């Protein structure tokens, strides 16, 4: 059976060219960039070239880019590194309720360390209000962290406006752009971004590598201690193949960006429209227009996400869900709940995240299969348009959990 991959927000395949250059830096050019000899010098050069490629994608300077092990580490470094380095200035951080767990759990950790965190609410489209950000600022605020685009529902936040506000108030502005890089035009200067996180494996680059952009002059301290790599901000032998792969992926993202955006937007809209035409009792999650070009997130009433996913998987389609059952936690997606969805609607959410390798045929196949699956699952469900949903009742079975 042919497999169709609609889970690019979870991870992307590594581009062939990227893999090829990585292979070269594993077996042939394997030196440690800190070494004085020729093996070291050739990898040092490659690392610095990759740094320039990543910088170019963001409109940054090469010496403002630092390599990490991924989006999670970049997020942790941004939050903790800035919080601890600027503790004397203040202890207040502003973020949103719909951030990735890398941000939310780092914030919870910082709260235990004496910081105060404001988690801004979002509207029904998962959009943060600039006014809310403004009102949350106190004279103790040292950092605002708002994600560029949401990983679940794709909503793109008013980054430029928040950045402008932060700049005026002289507060550092970090954005988790893990989902946005390679999918949106980003210029850190135009958008007033001080610190930005990105991850290799979301842009057809390798897993286990990420980067953080840190505007020159931003006060930040390292969270990992050791050698003097990455100007001591991020010690540890450089992951040269990962870095070189990320550099190549960034290069490709820059070249292909416009083409990717139009291709994905086209497929996305076709998929959304098709589902809306063919299937009733659904809800599109996230902002209608201001969303990631490849993101489709829809709640299908009366069914549960995991069983939907498994049925799609049996038909060869890989997707994702905001259902608690797929997250290993008991509550469904904190993003969907923050948008005001009821638990049962959140449980029935499906995320189809498209990538550059997807085709119209993939979309058509999905539109053929999905209605059949929905019909089957709904026929098995005790819920329907007429059932009194227990959403607002206390959960009588929670002791089973």
């Amino acid at each position, binding site marked *: 059976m042919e497999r169709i991959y609609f889970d690019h927000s979870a991870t992307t395949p590594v581009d062939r060219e990227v893999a090829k250059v990585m292979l070269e830096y594993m077996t042939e050019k394997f030196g440690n960039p800190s070494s004085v000899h020729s093996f070291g010098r050739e990898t040092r050069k490659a690392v610095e070239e990759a740094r320039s490629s990543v910088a170019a994608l963001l409109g940054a300077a090469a010496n403002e880019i630092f390599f990490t092990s991924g989006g999670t580490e970049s997020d942790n470094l941004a939050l903790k590194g800035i919080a601890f380095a600027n503790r004397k200035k203040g202890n207040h951080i502003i973020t949103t309720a719909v951030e990735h767990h890398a941000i939310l759990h780092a914030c919870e950790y910082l709260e235990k360390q004496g910081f105060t965190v404001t988690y801004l609410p979002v509207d029904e489209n998962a959009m943060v209000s600039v006014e809310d950000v403004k009102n949350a600022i106190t004279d103790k605020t040292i950092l605002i962290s708002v994600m560029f685009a949401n990983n679940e529902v794709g909503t793109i936040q008013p980054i430029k406006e928040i950045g402008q506000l932060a700049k005026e108030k002289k507060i550092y502005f970090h954005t988790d752009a893990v989902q946005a890089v390679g999918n949106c035009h980003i210029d850190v200067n135009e958008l007033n971004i001080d610190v930005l996180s990105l991850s290799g494996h979301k842009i057809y680059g390798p897993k286990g590598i990420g980067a953080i952009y840190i505007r020159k002059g931003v006060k930040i301290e390292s969270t990992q201690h050791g050698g003097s790599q990455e100007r001591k901000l991020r010690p540890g032998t450089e992951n040269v193949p990962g870095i070189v792969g990320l550099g190549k992926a960034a290069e490709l993202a820059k070249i292909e960006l416009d083409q990717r955006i139009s291709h994905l937007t086209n497929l996305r809209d076709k998929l959304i429209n098709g589902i809306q035409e063919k299937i009733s009792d659904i809800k599109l999650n996230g902002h209608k227009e201001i969303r990631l070009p490849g993101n489709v997130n829809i709640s299908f009433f009366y069914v*549960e996400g995991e*069983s939907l996913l498994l049925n799609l998987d049996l038909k060869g389609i890989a997707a994702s869900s905001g259902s*608690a059952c797929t997250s290993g936690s*008991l509550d469904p997606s904190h993003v969907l709940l923050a948008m005001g969805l009821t638990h049962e609607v959140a449980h029935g959410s499906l995320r189809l995240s498209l990538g550059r390798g997807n085709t119209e045929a993939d979309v058509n196949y999905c539109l053929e299969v999905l209605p059949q699956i929905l019909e089957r699952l709904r026929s098995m469900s005790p819920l329907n348009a007429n059932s009194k949903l227990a*959403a607002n009742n206390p959960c009588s079975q929670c002791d089973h959990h």
Partner: protein
Amino acid sequence: MYTEKVMDHFTNPRNVGEIENANGVGEVGNAKCGDIMRIYLDVQDDIIKDVKFKTFGCGAAIATSSMVTELVMGKTLDEALKISNDAVAEALDGLPPAKMHCSNLAADALHEAIKDYISKKGK
């Protein structure tokens, strides 16, 4: 993640549906929790002549519902009452740890349905 048996019961669930004149119905779970299981019984002379289910829930929830209906079809109520959630999971060659306590409620739904039958009969 899931065993072959789970996938079999998930893909081809046995005894899906409602029994029009069921003399015992049990429901456990809650949409908020992500799992609702409803079991319909047709009991004759303390024997389960027919059993059907409807379930909103994940793969494990559907498979355990299906499995429990197979396990009790034709059994006496006493035998059916002895079937535990763990026994259902075992009959499916096990469930992932995270699912053992979340979605393994089918035996509870069955017991609720039997209770419903008994209380109705008592009247």
